[in-house]
């Protein structure tokens, strides 16, 4: 008998990845809190679209409202629970699914940020694995409709990196990678923490700047002060990650040392990063906004507490100061609460 899989949070990533698993015959149950979305999935199937017509599929799926999760007690227990909710919903989502896990079942965080520790606090470290989805660029367009905004990456870029917290190659982590490979390229990583933190550095330096300034990628890249703010955010995050013992990867092709040197005033290092940022700003969609900018536009709560907030928290644990991250959090929260309009001026003092 195959594994029984639950997807908690059938949003952009959960819906997209779970939909591909279901289309390939895996035993999937979706759980989501948006009533219209659940009803549409059950009625019409999950509609997945991409940049080419060949990527378009409609998959019949089974989805549960939150109030129907208790019905899982009647069936086979859940072998793998993918948590795909926003980071701030991680704990309740874990509590929600915990009673229905098989004795050897486990939870996979298929989320942004670094939530394995929060999940472990609830189910124990032995039942947690992580899976990064890098550059997947998916979006929940409406009830039961997930669109992917970028082509399949395939061999050019490995989208999914599944890892045990201890880094060993295990049958269950291979199973997670196998399930993700229905969607796009996937691998097992022996450096989950390092990869998570490297992605967090990137997000911590970009996401909140976009959300609080209201600017798109091109405008940010062309503003010298905002570039410096991004460099400082990245350098603080990198320092914290190193102090926490993580093995970090290059960020946008540039080593962490260069960010730290640039933040400390090294002109040569600064030029390397400035040039790279300006070049990147000229490529791609000038109005592209990271997830936090989307959240802000939709009036949703952002993941700032779990992104830059985690940098600050881990900084305190490890004795590293993070004033730029703290300043950014304050700016984002002002905009979030409606106490200020998104504007680059909010970051002037950073």
């Amino acid at each position, binding site marked *: 008998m195959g594994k029984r899989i639950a997807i908690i949070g059938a949003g952009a990533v959960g819906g997209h990845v779970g939909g591909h698993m279901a289309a390939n015959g895996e035993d999937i149950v979706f759980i989501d809190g*948006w*009533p219209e979305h659940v009803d549409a999935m059950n009625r019409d199937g999950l509609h997945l679209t991409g940049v080419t017509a060949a990527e378009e599929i409609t998959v019949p799926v089974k989805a549960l409202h*939150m109030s129907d999760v208790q019905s899982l007690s009647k069936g086979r227990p859940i072998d793998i629970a993918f948590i795909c909710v926003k980071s701030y919903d991680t*704990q309740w989502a874990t509590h929600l699914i915990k009673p229905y896990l098989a004795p050897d079942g486990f939870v996979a965080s298929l989320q942004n940020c670094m939530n394995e520790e929060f999940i472990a606090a609830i189910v124990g470290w032995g039942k947690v694995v992580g899976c990064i989805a890098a550059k997947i660029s998916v979006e929940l367009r409406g009830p039961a409709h997930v669109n992917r905004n970028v082509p399949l990456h395939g061999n050019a870029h490995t989208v999914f990196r599944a890892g045990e917290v201890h880094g060993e190659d295990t049958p269950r982590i291979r199973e997670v990678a196998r399930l993700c490979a229905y969607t796009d390229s996937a691998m097992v990583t022996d450096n989950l923490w390092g990869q998570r933190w490297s992605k967090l550095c990137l997000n911590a330096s970009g996401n909140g700047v976009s959300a609080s300034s209201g600017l798109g990628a091109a405008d940010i890249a062309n503003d010298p002060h905002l570039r410096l703010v991004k460099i400082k955010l990245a350098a603080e995050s990198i320092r914290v990650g190193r102090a926490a013992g993580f093995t970090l990867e290059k960020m946008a092709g540039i080593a962490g040392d260069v960010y730290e040197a640039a933040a400390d005033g090294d002109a040569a290092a600064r030029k390397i990063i400035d040039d790279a940022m300006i070049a990147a700003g000229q490529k791609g969609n000038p109005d592209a906004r990271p997830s936090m900018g989307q959240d802000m536009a939709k*009036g949703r709560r952002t993941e700032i507490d779990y992104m830059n907030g985690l940098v600050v928290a881990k900084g305190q644990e490890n004795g590293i100061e993070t004033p730029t991250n703290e300043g950014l959090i304050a700016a984002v929260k002002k905009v*979030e609460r409606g106490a200020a309009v998104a504007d680059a001026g909010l970051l002037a003092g950073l």
Partner: protein
Amino acid sequence: MGIRVAMVGCGAVGGFTAGHMVRNGVDVTLIDAWPDHVAKMNRDGLSLRGVTEQESFDVPVRAIGITEVQNLQKEGPFDVAFISTKSYESQFAASLIKDYLAPRGFVVSLQNAINEERIASVVGWHRVVGCIASSISAELEAPAFIQRHVPIRGDSYTVFRAGEAHGRITERVELVAELMRHTDSAMATRDLWGERWSKLVVNSSHNGLSAATGLGGNGMATHDAARRVQIRMAAESIQVGQALGHVLHVKKGTEPAQWIAAAKGDAKAMQGIEDLLLAEVGSRGEGQRPSMGQDMLKGRKTEIAEINGHVVEKGAEVGIATPLNAAMVDLVQRCERGEIAPDPKNIEAW
């Protein structure tokens, strides 16, 4: 009063008490996972029915679903968050509301079983208050429609007992009692634990038994084996409660020691309690059945793990054997999964 109240879980007890608070001008946000219930409450208000016309009314309320909870961060935080979900959803509910509590805000477990410890594991002991709803007999019969089956008790019997874990009477438990008084009689208690465990003794003795046998209140009293199993299960729960240091109140006209003696083979003690149980048959409607018996009929997950399972778990902590409670957990879970049907035969050999 100027305080903001959240009701997490608006079923029978939560919906009924929230509706009464709203009618009396309290600012209450109702949060529930059942989409149809939330939609109907917002569209047509909450319909509460009592046994008399005066107790029946409709009240407009503000209800939100689970996905909308993240939007609460834009509003003022909650001073009081009631949790009125099933016990197995306690940690889920506490995690869900935690981020939206005021700095001095607190959580009230307005539930069956003993969930203060579970909630404290999420929000900390300093933020937990308990409130027992005793003999309220309300039922969510349809979306936005709650029926109470017994008259207002008023001075004849105190329905709500709010207490601190440490037993001191504080301003905040007085506040909880005041909020509950909009529904029926309420008091602040100095002995939350003793009251909770006394109620657990009753629930553990017949709630799972009803689910596993299909018998109602009268059926369990008149069936010889079921009647005696109730007494012996209660005796296990009493012993565990006493070992934990709680002061227990058992059925009027008996003492805890009599139940323990009855279970140990004292025929006279057993006969005395059996006579009391048989004498109650006339005072109860034929259709009456405890909540788990109702859950089983509706195909819902029961609270067996949090009621009899709690007795077993705490028994292990204090070294008291609880074989009947353990067997009941197993039996009810098999019925829940549909492996066997509820039948009095299931316990005849006990």
